[in-house]
C-alpha cells in the first residue's frame, strides 16, 4: 500500500478560531493508483494534499497518522519531514507557473534542489533530458530562465523537476484548472505517463473537475467541508454514485450533447456551512434533499462493497 492515512485532522489557525479544513480523513492509495480528490472550493482538498508535504502555520496538525510504503511519515515534524520531501512525497503545486525563481537558470535551480538530496545534476543530465522529452520540452530550456518560458512551459518544467527523484507519492494540485481543453488533455497525459512508466508510484490528483478525473483517475474520493463523503472506483463514482452530494454534483455537470432547451440541469441549492463552527451531524444535511433527523448525528464512513465507501445514513434512499 503506497499511502495510508488514518483519521487525519488539519486545522487552520485564524483569529476567530480553528477552521476545521481536514476533519478526520482516512483513506489508502494503492501502488500504481491515481486517486482523484474532488470537491468544491473550501472543502479541504488542497489543505489535505499540502499537509502531506509541507505542513506549516497557519496549518496546524491536530491528529492522525500517515504511512508511506508502510513507514510512518512524520508530517507534523517539519525537520524530520525534510528528507521525505521530493523523494518520498512530491508535489506539482497549483501555482506551478510561478514556482520557479524567475532569475535563476533552470539548470541551476535543478542542480541546487538535487544536491541537497545527494544527487548531481551532471550525473542525472541524460535522465533529465529524457524527461523533458516526455513533457515536450526542448533540452535547451535548461539554459534559460523561467521568465523566458510561458506559463504552461513553466508548469511542465515543474512537472519534470518534481518527479526527478521518482517519488512514491505525487500530489497534483489543481494542475488543470487554469488551462484550456487541449492543454488539460496534454497535462493529464503526462500524469498518466509518469505513472505508467513507474516514475511515480501513486498519484493524488486534486481537482474540482470530475470529468477530468473520469479520464485519468483509477478511483475518486469526494470531499465536502473537511469530510470525505464517498470513495469508489472511478466508474462507480461517475455511473453509480450513492451519496446524495455526489449524485447531485455529477448530475449538475453539463456535457456535450445536453442542451438547456431539451434537458435543463439543476445545481445544488444553498452554500456549504462555515468550517469555523460546522454543524453537528452530517455537514451536507442543510442542502440535502433527503435529509432527516437521523442526519443530526454524524454518519460513519461505511464500506458498501469492496473499495466503495460512503458516509450517509440514507445510502440508496434516493432514486435516480
Amino acid at each position, binding site marked *: 500500500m503506497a499511502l495510508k492515512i488514518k483519521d487525519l485532522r488539519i486545522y487552520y489557525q485564524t*483569529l476567530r478560531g480553528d477552521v476545521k479544513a481536514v476533519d478526520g480523513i482516512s483513506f489508502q492509495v494503492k501502488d500504481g493508483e491515481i486517486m482523484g480528490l474532488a470537491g468544491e472550493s473550501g472543502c479541504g482538498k488542497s489543505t489535505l494534499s499540502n499537509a502531506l508535504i509541507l505542513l506549516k502555520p497557519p496549518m496546524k496538525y491536530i491528529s492522525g497518522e500517515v504511512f508511506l510504503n508502510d513507514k510512518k511519515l512524520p508530517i507534523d515534524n517539519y525537520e524530520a519531514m525534510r528528507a521525505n520531501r521530493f523523494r518520498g512525497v512530491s508535489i506539482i503545486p497549483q501555482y506551478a507557473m510561478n514556482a520557479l525563481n524567475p532569475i535563476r537558470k533552470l539548470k541551476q535551480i535543478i542542480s541546487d534542489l538535487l544536491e541537497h538530496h545527494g544527487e548531481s545534476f551532471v550525473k542525472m543530465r541524460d535522465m533529465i533530458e529524457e524527461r523533458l522529452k516526455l513533457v515536450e520540452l526542448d533540452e535547451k530550456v535548461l539554459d534559460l530562465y523561467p521568465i523566458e518560458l510561458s506559463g504552461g512551459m513553466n508548469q511542465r518544467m515543474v512537472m519534470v523537476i518534481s518527479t526527478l527523484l521518482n517519488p512514491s507519492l505525487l500530489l497534483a494540485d489543481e494542475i488543470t484548472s487554469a488551462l484550456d481543453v487541449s492543454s488539460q488533455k496534454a497535462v493529464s497525459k503526462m500524469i498518466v505517463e509518469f505513472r505508467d512508466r513507474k516514475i511515480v508510484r501513486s498519484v493524488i490528483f486534486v481537482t474540482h473537475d470530475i470529468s477530468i478525473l473520469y479520464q485519468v483517475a483509477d478511483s475518486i474520493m469526494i470531499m465536502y467541508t473537511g469530510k470525505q463523503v464517498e470513495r469508489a472506483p472511478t466508474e462507480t463514482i461517475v455511473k453509480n454514485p450513492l451519496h446524495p452530494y455526489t449524485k447531485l454534483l455529477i448530475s449538475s455537470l453539463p456535457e456535450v450533447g445536453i442542451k438547456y432547451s431539451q434537458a435543463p440541469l439543476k445545481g445544488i441549492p444553498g452554500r456549504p456551512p462555515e468550517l469555523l463552527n460546522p454543524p453537528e451531524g452530517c455537514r451536507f444535511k442543510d442542502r440535502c434533499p433527503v435529509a432527516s433527523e437521523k442526519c443530526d448525528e454524524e454518519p460513519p464512513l461505511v464500506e458498501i462493497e469492496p473499495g466503495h465507501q460512503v458516509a450517509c445514513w440514507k445510502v440508496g434512499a434516493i432514486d435516480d
Partner: protein
Amino acid sequence: MKFRKSEILFFALRNTKLRIGVFIVALFAFLAIFGPYFAKYEPQDFAGPGYNPPSGEYWLGTTTFGRDVFSQFVYGLRSTFLVGFVGGSIATFIGLFVGFLSGYKGGLADELLMMFTNIVLVIPTMALLIILAAYLKYRGVFLESVFIGFTAWPWTARAVRSQTLSLKTREFVNLARITGMKPLKIIVVEILPNMLSYVFMVFILQFGGAILTAATLDFIGLGPTQGISLGLMMQQAVLWNAIQLGMWWWAVPPGIAITAIVGAMYFMNTGLDEVFNPKLREM
C-alpha cells in the same frame, strides 16, 4: 475575513510598533503645540548670560549669545511639524496625481509623465533646492516646505502608478466604465478608496522625509532667513563651535527631536503595514 473593519482596528490597537510610534510623535506634537506657552523667552531674545548649561531658569541652557535653547527648541519643533505636514502633503498630493494619471491613462501620457518623473527623480532634490534658495532673498519655513514638497514626489508617483496599474486590471473598474462613469470619477470613487491605507503610509514617509530634508537644508545655510528651526539650531551650534566648547545642550537636543520624530514615523509605517497586510501579521 468577515469583520474586516473591526479586524483592522483590532490589529491597529494591538500593534506595538504602531503604538510606540504614535506615542512618540504625539509627545513631540504636544511639546510643539504647548511648549511655546511655557517658554519664558522669545527664541531670538537675549535671555541672559551665554554659555549657561541647563538649569531651573534656562531649562536647556543658553547659547553663546545668551539665547534660551528651550525656547528655540519648542518653536523649532513647530517649524519641524509644519515642514513635515506641508511638505509631506504637497509631495503626497503631487505623487498621487501624477501616479494616478500616468497609471490610469497609460499610453503616451504615461510615457511622458514617467520620463518627467524619472528626470526629477535623478536630479538630487538638494541640488535643485540650492539653486532655488540661493536666489530668494527672504525665505520662510512655509516656502521651504513648499519647495520640498515640489521636489519630493517622484518616488510616490512611481509607486502609486504601479499600484494603479494593478488595480486598473480589476474588473470592477471595467464595471464602472460600462456603468458610464468618467475616468476621473472612476479614479476618485473606485481606485482611490482602495489605496487609502497605502496613501496614508506614503504620507507618513513623506512627512518624515520632508523633516529630514528641511533639517539638512537649514544646516547647509539654505533654511529660512526668518524664524527658527531645529536645523538652524544645529547649524548655529556648529558654526559657533558648540562642540569644541562642550555645549552639548545646544547641539544635541534638536537632533534627538528630529531622530525621534522621524524614527517614530518610520516605525508607525511598519506597524501600519503589518495591520493592513495580513501576510506580515504576527500570529
